[in-house]
């Protein structure tokens, strides 16, 4: 789950990380009211799940209420790389002496947490990593030990920040590590982390990605989920608890397991077709889940044929077959279905399907055969 900047700042604030006084809003009038409260000058910032806001005109400085009105009016509704701005964040402008970069993420190779700190902030860290890798001070943290203040201090010293920033940076980074671990984040990034002329260190931006698997122990994360950007099909699938990713083609794909679903998408491409989606019905899928999956696929007007690819492990073949039969009774499926069913209870599953086979429902023995059939059917029905 990716947080918007304002959500990230609210998340940081819960852990005592200094952020600028500000508030999010969705109207020009509210923007002015917030600016009046926090005091001028203010920054008006577009809240979208995409980078490059500044260049797109989504970040503006305002010295007075008229300027807030003007900028807020321009930014609300702005299209930034296909993301329409619905929410803006108004915060008091900060004086900046220096800009740094700081982040925590999981290093999957090292199986440790990785902290990165650089005196070259405010620019893309990937660029710094490429052009001047020595400018990034890295620290690998064993999750069992955590980050001690002493380790944080030597890390900060290795990054060659302005000495005035050392104490403030150590304080923020230890708090950021706590936010990262206690908050179950995949990523906590501050870019820029600023040193003010007055000597304070401060998070001027916030990029936070939370682990969707951790929501059971963070009740407040539901609110973040509501602001995730999904297309209509993805929204519908998400509401049903399905792992769905929208693609641009015409063969609807339903499979169990992320790997098999990916493989199904690959094989549809390889036989000259184009998948409409990736859909993993996951482990433990029952009749209801399969019915929901079929409904989701069927609601996509681009879908010309449907490929159900199930290998029985946790999801048993007879449950899958019953799910398909139930779904067929529940919704009018417009596109022909090709099924490839194997694994646990596959024989029972195929037996259940047998009495329902028709032009609209075929069963094939292999993935390649099923893929060729489903793509041919889609093309017969006008897919290009």
């Amino acid at each position, binding site marked *: 789950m990716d947080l918007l900047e304002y959500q990230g700042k609210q998340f940081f604030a819960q852990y005592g990380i200094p952020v600028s006084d500000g508030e999010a809003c969705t109207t020009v009038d509210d923007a002015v009211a917030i600016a009046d409260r926090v005091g001028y000058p203010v920054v008006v910032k577009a809240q979208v799940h995409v980078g490059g806001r500044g260049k797109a005109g989504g970040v503006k400085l305002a010295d007075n209420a008229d300027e807030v009105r003007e900028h807020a009016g321009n930014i609300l509704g702005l299209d930034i790389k296909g993301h329409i701005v619905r929410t803006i964040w108004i915060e008091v402008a900060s004086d900046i002496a220096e800009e740094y970069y700081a982040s925590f993420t999981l290093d*999957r190779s090292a199986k440790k947490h990785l902290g990165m700190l650089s005196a070259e902030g405010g620019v893309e860290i990937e660029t710094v990593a490429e052009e001047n890798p020595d400018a990034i001070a890295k620290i690998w943290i*064993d999750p069992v030990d955590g980050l001690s203040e002493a380790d944080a201090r030597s890390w900060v010293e290795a990054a060659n920040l302005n000495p005035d920033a050392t104490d403030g940076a150590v304080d923020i980074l230890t708090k950021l590590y706590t936010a990262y671990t206690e908050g179950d984040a995949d990523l906590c990034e501050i870019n820029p982390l600023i040193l003010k002329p007055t000597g304070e260190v401060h998070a001027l931006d916030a990029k936070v990605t939370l682990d969707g*698997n951790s929501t059971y122990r963070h009740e407040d994360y539901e609110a973040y989920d509501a602001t995730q950007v999904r297309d209509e099909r993805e929204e519908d699938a998400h509401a049903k608890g399905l792992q769905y990713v929208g693609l641009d083609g015409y063969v609807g794909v339903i499979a169990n397991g992320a*790997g098999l679903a*990916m493989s199904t998408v690959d094989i549809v491409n390889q036989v000259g077709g184009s*998948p409409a989606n990736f859909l993993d019905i*996951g482990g433990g899928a029952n009749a209801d889940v399969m019915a929901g999956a079929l409904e989701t696929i069927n609601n996509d007007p681009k879908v010309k044929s449907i490929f159900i690819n199930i*290998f029985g*492990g946790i999801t048993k073949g007879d449950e899958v077959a019953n799910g398909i039969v139930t779904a067929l009774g529940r919704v009018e499926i417009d596109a022909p279905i090709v099924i490839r069913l194997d*694994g646990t209870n596959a024989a029972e599953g195929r037996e259940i399907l047998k009495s329902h086979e028709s032009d609209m429902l075929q069963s094939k023995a292999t993935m390649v055969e099923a893929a060729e059939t489903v793509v041919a059917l889609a093309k017969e029905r006008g897919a290009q």
Partner: protein
Amino acid sequence: MAIFVDENTKVIYQGLTGSQGSFYGGRNAEYGTKVVAGTHPKKAGTDVNGVPIFASVAEAVAETGATASCIFIPAPGVRAAVMEAAEGGVEFIVCITEGVPAHDEAWFFNKLQRDFPNVQLLGPNCPGIISPGKCNIGITAGEIAKEPTAGGPNVGIVSRTGTLTYQALYELKLKDIGVSTCVGIGGDPVPGTSFIDCLERFEADDETQAIMMIGEIGGSAEEEAAEFIKANVSKPVVSYVAGVTAPPGKKMGHAGAIVSGGKGTAAAKREALEDAGVKVGSNPTEAGELMVGVVQNL
């Protein structure tokens, strides 16, 4: 031989009293796995289809001499269950549960490495392990796995993705190729067992003559495996990497399966593997066919 588990492995099921635990524990027992105990803090003294339930892993180990544990506990309880298994004295832990927070995984991976260096964890979020004809721990349908043939050639399978693990077993069975051991390492960010852990053991295993490795997009596990193969593996390796056509920035179901910043693409992984002399198929069936060619030349 086989790797990690064989006919002598005695297994405890943490969560045997639950619906998933009893279903798959039952299936594993039917397959011939030595399912010797279940655990539940409040149901000690009862049994599930004749398998005794103990209050803890430590008690179950003391009573049965079990050496492995299989976890079917819901995600919130996994961290405690893994540590209970290690502290209870088993050497091999299979965690089937999906949806475990990444911070928990990173924590218990490092905790085990430090305090229980002899304990091997497989998973979380994996289908388990099967040494066909000997031992099946987890959710793999045993009937799709062909037993190894005496004298070989037999294949060892290691896979990052659940259903493709079964797919690989199935393809080999259709082609009448025996399997020594099939290890599903799972697609999570911090898997307890890596490709390299398995490659190392397959290389040393007398019963394994060739290796099938199934990867997917995201992370750099396949690239690291390629480097290891180049330097340390003499047996032929065939591979398939899922997600060739996955768009960047979209998470494909697994927490690990995402192409970000141009890194972790299937194409890059394929290139690294081919550079290490691995034959890479474009789909699971093609990988199976490549393996037929490899096995015929052994």
